[in-house]
């Protein structure tokens, strides 16, 4: 009975991998002694595809990176392109963008919360979360015309204005979302089973977080209070009030609390944006559609944004032609996921799904 270490394959086709993650786990009894993630099953090389067409054409591939938060992805691309072209964006368009990305952050966190509950063996939160997410998707449908992949942000603004009906829908949603959120939080947070399965599990220390380049809610749950929206504000994030939630425990439960609090803050941002939304143009007429494919630019740009998973940005290099020379995607999930070996080592096999789902990986973005 000396050499008891066995190797178990986890995934890639498994519901709790949130996509197509495969982990090669070495087990000593129930204890994980080594875990090596294997990725690449959803690889499409979005970077190469985006380097093959005109600047606005890259948007549809960027949309499909983090498909549950497509607007946050679009924002990273559109900001980089506009920065490179010195494009002027009307004020109203920028506020609309802020409104949309915050709503999309809520949708993304809700889908995470629901599936995280599912991974922990609880089916009820899933329905509660998806009910709320459905309302957000209906708002998106009203404004953009699509429910999941929008192609809504355009160079120089947004493609369509926010309708009065949509404003009514958002107001209705913000009015009772916080109470609904409390309901959902109590479903998980007050469950003895959930708390005891997540507290002290999947720990990452602040040093690990920095060393792996982990960003977003995972970083804030480990005691590093950083948020791109506060540290280097883009759009009008310096004109709204919100807090950065942070915890010091660095375990799964801390990540749960951080994300819940982030949703509350996002709801408050949405409320403030509705109050401050100015009248005016939603689109810079200089960048009308037939013009877009002929836009030429040169130089280099990297505009960091805070996506639901962490720091998302595009490193864009233009060579003076109408096709981008290099589109490099900084994907937060990729860096977050690389911390798996440290995060799982020493814990039990039953904690694996809890830890992995607490990272909120989305494989469109990891594999690109």
């Amino acid at each position, binding site marked *: 009975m000396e050499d008891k270490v066995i190797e178990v394959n986890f995934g890639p086709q498994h519901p709790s991998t949130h996509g197509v993650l495969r982990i090669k786990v070495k087990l000593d009894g129930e204890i994980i002694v080594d875990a090596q993630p294997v*990725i*690449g099953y959803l*690889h499409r*090389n979005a*970077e*190469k595809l985006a*380097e*093959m067409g005109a600047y606005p054409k890259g948007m549809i591939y960027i949309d499909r990176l983090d498909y549950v938060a497509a607007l946050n992805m679009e924002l990273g691309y559109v900001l980089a392109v506009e*920065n*490179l072209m*010195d494009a002027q964006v009307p004020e109203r368009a920028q506020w609309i963008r802020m409104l949309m990305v915050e709503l999309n952050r809520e949708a993304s966190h809700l889908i995470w919360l629901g599936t995280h509950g599912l991974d922990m063996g609880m089916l009820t939160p899933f329905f509660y979360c998806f009910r709320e997410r459905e309302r957000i998707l209906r708002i998106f449908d009203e404004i953009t015309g699509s429910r999941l992949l929008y192609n809504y942000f355009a160079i120089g603004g947004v493609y369509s204005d926010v309708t009065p009906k949509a404003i009514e829908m958002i107001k209705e949603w913000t009015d009772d979302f916080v109470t609904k959120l409390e309901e959902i939080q109590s479903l998980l947070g007050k469950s003895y089973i959930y708390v005891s399965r997540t507290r002290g599990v999947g720990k990452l220390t602040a040093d*690990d977080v*920095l*060393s*792996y*380049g*982990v*960003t977003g809610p995972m970083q804030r749950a480990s005691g*590093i209070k*950083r948020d791109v929206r506060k*540290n*280097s504000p883009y759009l009008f994030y310096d004109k709204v009030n919100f807090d950065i939630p942070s915890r010091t425990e660095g375990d799964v439960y801390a990540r749960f609390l951080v994300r819940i609090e982030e949703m509350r803050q996002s709801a408050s941002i949405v409320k403030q944006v509705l109050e401050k939304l100015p009248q005016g143009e939603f689109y810079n007429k200089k960048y009308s559609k037939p013009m877009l494919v002929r836009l030429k630019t040169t*130089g*280099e*740009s*990297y*505009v*960091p944004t805070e996506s639901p998973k962490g*720091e998302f940005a595009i*490193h864009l*290099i233009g060579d003076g032609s109408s096709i981008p*020379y*290099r589109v*490099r995607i*900084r994907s937060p999930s*990729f*860096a977050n996921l*690389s*911390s798996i070996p*440290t995060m799982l080592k020493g814990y039990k096999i039953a904690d694996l799904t809890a830890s992995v789902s607490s990272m909120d990986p989305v494989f469109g973005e990891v*594999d*690109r």
Partner: protein
Amino acid sequence: MIPIEAETTTKNGIKVVYVSKENILPFLTEKKGEGFDTLLMITGVDYKDHLEVLYHLLSSGNNARLIVKTKTNEEVDSVTSLWKGADWHERETWDLVGVKFKNHPNLKRILLAEGWIGHPLRKDYPMDKKQFVNLSDDGEDRVSYDKTEGY
């Protein structure tokens, strides 16, 4: 002080410095000591006559950003000894751009199948040629241009 070869900024004001490839490891060690504790990403760009490797650094303490670039033809020193996160980023750069990292503990392809022919983000990569991957039982992937030998 390690000498820098040139200095520019990106359009939104992030500092970019060029360092010779022999000095990249000492330079990044020095920068890490100065508070640049996070490595956001490593990537490569193919400029046809040479390759460039980019390191995005972030100081979480004083919120400073720095992009370090180095020109190379094939090979550059690995920085996995400084940041654990460099492991995957270097593997990806090797996989897609084809930059070799010296002293990397496990320099294998990460996104594409092992044995893939060429590096897709090179400008001379043949886009019209399809490759077919055969996942065999022994865990070793075989890649070929022949349609009958894979998917």
